[in-house]
């Protein structure tokens, strides 16, 4: 149960003066049940890489397998395999088109060939997952909603397809802190409830440290680092710097506090963990 890239190269506009290599020799396996954060500076190839995971882009060289089915081959299962991978693009609210929230969320499940009852069931569940009341919103026009709500509709549209792998390309871009928190809370709930794989593309080291259990660092169209948040953020600071990235603010804060004499344990990454550790050291509860 995995998605596998084998020595994937990808070049945009091959054979023209605007030719640009976006991926070179990328190999990796993403298993079901993993929460992978993909980080890297702008133009490092993050978005290009994740678009290979569901066959939206075809590699110039190399192979892509979804559950051992070669996407470039002739296996009749290819279409079904691609539909196991859900993808939420950057600013997904820009792809909303239907007259009602229900119709828009139902688009994916219908394309997947579900029956009308199943579709309704999935739409209800998906709306519930993103925290939108079915009775209030299902019949409303998505274009009358706020930006944050439209994004929830768009994410629900992908979740309703019941993907085994969910790719999220900067799902929190342009949202206020409250809406960000809410979106991630839902994603974590989904991850824990369905044991699917989540692939999160993000610019925020804090998000990566807080939610992921595996981190991929891309730099100059290659995979620079691949490991747990602990390994990457605590032991590879110099490499991250060179890739124009940094360690999370929580890790920087812990370092400053330790230097200032506070006896905090090593290996603290997330905000809740840091807060708990400080409280413990200072004897607060």
């Amino acid at each position: 149960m995995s998605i596998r890239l084998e020595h994937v190269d990808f070049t945009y506009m091959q054979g023209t003066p605007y030719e640009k290599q976006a991926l070179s020799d990328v190999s990796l396996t993403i298993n079901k049940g993993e929460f992978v954060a993909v980080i890297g500076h702008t133009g490092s190839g993050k978005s290009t890489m994740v678009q290979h995971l569901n066959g939206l882009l075809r590699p110039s060289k190399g192979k892509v397998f979804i559950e051992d089915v070669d996407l470039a081959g002739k296996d009749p299962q290819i279409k079904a395999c691609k539909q196991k991978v859900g993808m939420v693009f950057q600013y997904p609210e820009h792809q909303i088109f239907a007259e009602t929230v229900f119709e828009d969320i139902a688009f994916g499940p219908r394309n997947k060939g579900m029956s009308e009852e199943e579709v309704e069931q999935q739409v209800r569940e998906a709306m519930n997952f993103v925290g939108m009341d079915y009775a209030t919103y299902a019949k409303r026009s998505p274009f009358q909603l706020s930006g944050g709500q439209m994004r929830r509709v768009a994410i629900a549209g992908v979740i309703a397809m019941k993907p085994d792998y969910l790719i999220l390309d900067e799902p929190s871009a342009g949202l206020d802190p409250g809406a960000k928190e809410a979106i991630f809370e839902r994603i974590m709930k989904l991850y824990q409830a369905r044991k699917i794989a989540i692939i999160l593309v993000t610019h925020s080291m804090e998000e990566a440290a807080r939610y992921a259990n595996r981190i991929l660092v891309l730099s100059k169209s290659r995979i620079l680092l691949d490991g747990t948040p602990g390994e990457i953020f605590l032991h590879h600071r110099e490499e991250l710097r060179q890739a124009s990235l940094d360690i999370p603010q929580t890790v920087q804060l812990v370092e400053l506090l330790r230097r200032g004499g506070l006896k905090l344990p090593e290996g603290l990454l997330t905000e809740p963990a840091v807060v708990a550790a400080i409280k413990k050291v200072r004897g607060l509860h």
Partner: protein
Amino acid sequence: MLADITLGQYYPGNSVIHQLDPRTKILGTLLFIIAIFMATNTVGYVFLCAFVMAVILASRLPVGMVFRSLKPLAFIIVLTMALHFFMGEGEQVLFEWQFLRITREGLAMGVKMSLRLVLLLLISSVLTFTTSPIVLTDGIESLLNPFKRIGVPAHELAMMMTIALRFIPTLIEETDRIIKAQTARGADFTSGNLLQKAKNMLPVLIPLFISAFRRADELAVAMEARCYRGGEGRTRMHELAYTHVDVAAFVLIVIVMAIMAVLRWWPL
């Protein structure tokens, strides 16, 4: 996919031809087209071909690429040639079968006419290959300026062209993104009859229109915020200026026209 479409056919470079002022290139192309139609005899055509070849080489464009630009119009070129071959009038009959008659004059005319078309296409491709669309629009605006007096809105026309050109790649990118997003949701754009296909395009067209209107709105606000009031009294960031290279180019094209005139009216 869609992102692979290049706009116009600008091929960045640094050759003499690239550096010419766009006005020189536009006027030069027009004058050369007149020169093409002055050609009557073999010497004239050979000279024109040599000149076009020299211009292509001077532009340092891949020669194969320039010639590939003939492909979309290959049908018309071949048709022109065929029509002249079989329908041409003339005395010296080479071949005759029912109503088809190939004459020496028809043959010569066919070759000449299609050669004219080829030269015309090649020289205008060099213009679009070596001039970016934005610079080209600047050139057109500047050339249209004198006609402002008779009511031609030169600046507004050029601004509209520039904006349209500026947004074509953006909208192509947007279309590409929406198509990908809907494909990821299982949309199918290839199967079904025509009506079905048109209906399948709605999930792409609606978001695309919404985003085009949004962008137009944002652009209008941004332009107004920077006090855009139309062309009146407007200065430009990149002033077009003729250099000695442009003078040389104009002298060259006038010489070419003079040679063509001599060949036409006082043949050797």
